[in-house]
């Protein structure tokens, strides 16, 4: 079954608005990473956050491990934030393999 579920599947914002992306997972996760995938396909790691809250720049991630969910908050969105945001977890199988969600496609319009 689907190990990682992301919502919403797509989101359209006006520049300057905030975005809230959700990631829910079905099993214990020992590692969780948020990625940005550009329209061209390149993958960039944004935050590694298996538990608690982490900030970097305009990004804030909060992971509640017991509830098997994580969120990514993007403040003051910019047109260059447009792309796909992926949540990936490691399922504590003993080896570190990421299971990815299908992503949230974000479009920021000027």
């Amino acid at each position, binding site marked *: 079954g689907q190990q990682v579920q992301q919502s919403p599947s797509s989101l359209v914002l006006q520049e300057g608005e905030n975005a809230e992306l959700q990631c829910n997972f079905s099993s214990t996760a020992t*590692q969780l990473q948020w990625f940005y995938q550009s329209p061209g*396909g390149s993958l960039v790691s944004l935050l590694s956050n298996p538990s608690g809250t982490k900030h970097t720049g305009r990004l804030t991630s909060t992971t509640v491990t017991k509830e098997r969910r994580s969120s990514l908050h993007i403040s003051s969105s910019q047109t260059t934030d447009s792309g796909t945001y*992926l949540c990936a977890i*490691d399922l504590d199988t003993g080896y570190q393999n990421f299971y990815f*969600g299908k992503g949230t496609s974000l479009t920021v319009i000027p």
Partner: protein
Amino acid sequence: GPKVLQIPSHQIIDMGQMVTLNCDPVSNHLYFYWYKQILGQQMEFLVNFYNGKVMEKSKLFKDQFSVERPDGSYFTLKIQPTALEDSAVYFCASSPTGDTQYFGPGTRLLVL
């Protein structure tokens, strides 16, 4: 930040031929991974590699696939023979300790 390189960026080959995808991981990283992303679909784990051995592989890692890292050089994914369904973007990743993974830009493989 740390950079993983992948060579080539694009590859087009005929079905049945062999292809080798090359990954230049971050130096001093010990864990290596391959992932596959078919156009429009989600990224899926193929295999991980540590200490010269495959540690775990998914059901997508068919018998036609093999990985190696001879003498600490490139970490390679070889497909022999290729099939039409192998067309995808293949991402390599490396990690120093198995937690945070650093991804390369991907190799876009098209099998005709």
